[in-house]
């Protein structure tokens, strides 16, 4: 019911139609697209129970964890759908509506667990009543600032980074946003069209990071946005595409990338360097919730416990998959311990996230972003 607000007023408000209409159009398109797409299966084919997971988490980082779970629980088969964070938000709401309209559930299996890095959208889902409560010894062990209402649980905390192509990058590698701005100004031609970042209209997490940047340092964010705009910044839906382009040299720098993906690639690719901005490093949580109408909340709970268990948390760390949420398991010498050179700004998992998703604020923010990047003109 809350997303109607978004939809309805996107249609109504003609002045900001582009960004908003896009969202709506996407919504109607992606659903059909998503249903058609076959999920990735894990575990025994003959397992008696199926756990549908909708997740905005690249399989590259998650597959080992899913396999381990499937090995531990042979009676559960996991159907894993990788979904963009913003799509995931609308899909979860849509699936609640599916339940209400009692559409054939077999054709449109409803997820029993959703995982997202767009903390704000997930928190809004909980706030608006789309999640159910879950409690176990594992969730109880989790610190209060990593969960909300016992409905939303964070299992990973990772830094937001810049990724540079060492060879392609002109001049010294930037330490922070100021030095990045300086480099852009000094090497305008080399930089033009060669910086990539999230399209905040398409990516939920992209919007979150941008809005948090604006919140952390409004002036820096304004200058950065202006510089991005004047140098034809490239916008993407997803982190891995940016990373691919940085690796290939098409881009010299990717801004506001998820640390887990970036570090994974930087580790294997000498051309890439991950930079934690020195002025401040945003820290983002990945969080999971069990939707209210989840058909299999029991197994979703078991999976949630597994995500928070020592086994999974250690796996994330040891295999360099994700940055674990439980610092008590961290090995001090581990490369997967965040070692930010400057202050960290942990994006808090509480009601404040709703402000960023305020309808008026979001509309204005996207509008300003479009103006700065001169995208609306282009269309």
């Amino acid at each position, binding site marked *: *019911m*809350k997303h*109607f*607000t978004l939809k*309805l*007023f996107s249609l109504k408000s003609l002045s900001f139609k582009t960004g908003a209409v896009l969202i709506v159009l996407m919504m109607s398109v992606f659903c059909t697209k998503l249903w058609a797409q076959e999920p990735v299966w894990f575990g025994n084919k003959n397992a008696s129970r199926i756990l549908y997971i909708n997740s905005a988490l690249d399989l590259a980082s998650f597959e080992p964890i899913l396999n381990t779970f499937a090995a531990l629980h042979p009676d559960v088969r996991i159907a894993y759908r990788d979904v963009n964070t913003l799509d995931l938000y609308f899909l979860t709401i849509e699936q609640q509506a599916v339940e209400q309209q009692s559409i054939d559930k077999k054709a449109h299996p409803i997820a029993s667990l959703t995982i997202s890095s767009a903390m704000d959208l997930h928190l809004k889902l*909980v*706030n*608006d*009543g789309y999640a159910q409560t879950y409690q176990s010894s594992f969730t109880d062990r989790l610190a*209060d600032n990593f969960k*909300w*209402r016992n409905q939303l649980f964070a299992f990973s905390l990772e830094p937001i980074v810049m990724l540079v192509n060492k060879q392609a990058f002109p001049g010294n590698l930037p330490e922070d946003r100021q030095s990045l701005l300086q480099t852009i100004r000094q090497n305008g031609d080399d930089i033009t069209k060669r910086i990539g970042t999230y399209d905040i209209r398409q990516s939920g997490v992209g919007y979150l990071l941008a809005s948090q940047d604006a*919140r952390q340092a409004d002036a820096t964010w304004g200058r950065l946005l202006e510089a991005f705009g004047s140098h034809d910044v490239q916008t993407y839906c997803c982190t891995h595409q940016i990373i691919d382009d940085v690796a290939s040299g098409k881009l010299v720098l990717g801004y506001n990338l998820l640390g887990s993906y970036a570090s994974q690639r930087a580790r294997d690719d000498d051309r890439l360097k991950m930079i934690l901005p020195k002025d401040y490093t945003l820290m983002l949580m990945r969080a999971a919730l069990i939707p209210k109408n989840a058909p299999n909340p029991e197994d979703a709970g078991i999976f949630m416990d597994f995500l928070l268990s020592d086994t999974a948390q250690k796996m994330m760390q040891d295999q360099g998959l994700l940055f674990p949420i439980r610092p008590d398991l961290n090995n001090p010498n581990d490369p997967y311990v965040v070692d930010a050179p400057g202050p960290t700004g942990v994006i*808090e998992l*509480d*009601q*404040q996230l*709703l*402000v960023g998703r*305020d*309808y*008026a*604020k979001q509309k*204005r923010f996207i509008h300003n972003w479009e103006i700065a990047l001169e995208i609306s003109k282009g269309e």
Partner: protein
Amino acid sequence: MWQKSLNINEEEEKKALKKAPSLRFRFILTGTLVIGVIAALAVNLIFDYSQKLADLSYDRLLRSALLQMDENIGLIRNEVSIDIPWSAFATLAQADEDRVFYKVESLEKGFITGYQDLNSLPPKPPVLDQVQFYNQEYSGEMVRFAWVERHLTDPETAQTVRIVLGQTRLSREEMASAITQKAIQFVLFIALVAITLIIIGSHLVLRPLHRIEGALEERAMGDLTPIDINTPKETHHLKVAINHFMVRLQKNLEQLENYTADAAHQLRTPLASLRALAENARDDIFADKNSLGSQPSNSLPLSKGESKSSPEKQYQALDNIIKQCDGLSQTVTLLLNQAVVSHRLQTHRLESIDLLEPITASCREQALTALHQGVHLSLECDLKQTLILGDSFAIQQMMQNLIENAVRYSGVDIEHATEVIVQVSEFETFYRIKVIDYGGGIPDVEKGRVFERFYRGRYDIAGSGVGLAMVKDIIDHHGARIVILDTEPKGTTFQVDFAKYKYKEGLV
């Protein structure tokens, strides 16, 4: 036998004790009930209060967030714009588990931001610029809303903006229940302490009673001395009452002893005389049968007639016995009456009676007997009503004794007096009864002694010696006074004064 009946008594006592209501139990029960009611009221108040307190504290947060939102509303190019500050929701995040709902709308242009399906009409009539708080259900939960409405004006346009900001009640309920829990623990503790104090208090309060009880139980039989134990003020009166009661009991016992002694004394003499008479009669018959010359050995005056033939003698002897029996019977009646009077005086309260009634009744009763003895009894009275405080039966007995006495002594001298007069007259504060006879009179030296028990002025006249003693008892009991006067030209006058009912206080 004795032992067995004692056991039965004890068992019955135990049964009665079981049935009897317990003072202590009642005391504790009432106290506990009262405390229970007070505790219930307190708990009720606490529930109410804790809710209010929780609402009060969290409403402050809500108001602060609302005002922060309100502060960030402005008009930009005739459009209402709101930029919700992060800090507003940081304030709300202090209620860490509570969901947040809000809506901003312009009355002219409609919805601006927030949750569109939120009801933005407050239950109370809206007043501009005044924050209202209320509970309303939204999204399946009870939500506390803060509401405000205000005007936005700039040179070109004026709009009314309404902000509704809500927060679920989780933290409030948590806080309220935490307060309630603490307070209830406290109230329960106080109640328990109070009940314990009541139980201890009841024990302490009743202990002096148990001590008195113990002191009485331990007494030897017949020990009627006053209780001598230290008791608190509250039980002092009880102790005094018991002691008074014992004094009365002692007095009663003494009277009973006296009476028993009286009775024994009264009955011994006539019985001895009866025995002598009967012995005489037997001996006479024996003597008649054996020898006419033999002399009877007794010295009784009645067996003087030696010349009388034996049937006559027998008749005489038997007649004497009968007379003696009558006398004895009279004595027994007198004793019984005395017992009854004495009992009545002990047990009956004095009440207002008409003095004339017992006097009249007594005169009427005695008139015929007196006439048999050749005495004319007359009552002189022209009063209508004579109210005194007294016992009718006792006064009748008193009159009977006085009249009997007067009649008896009328025939003492050779010159037989033929009249006994009862006079009743009224004075300012009392009624005076005079019983006047014209008999031999009482010498002055004896006047003081006639009321002594067993004192008999003349032993040749039949009498028990208790009649006038009883009269004195009755007089004393009524607080009346009796005087013995001489009748002119000769004889005795008993003068009794009874206080009038209404003047009693003054006289006594």
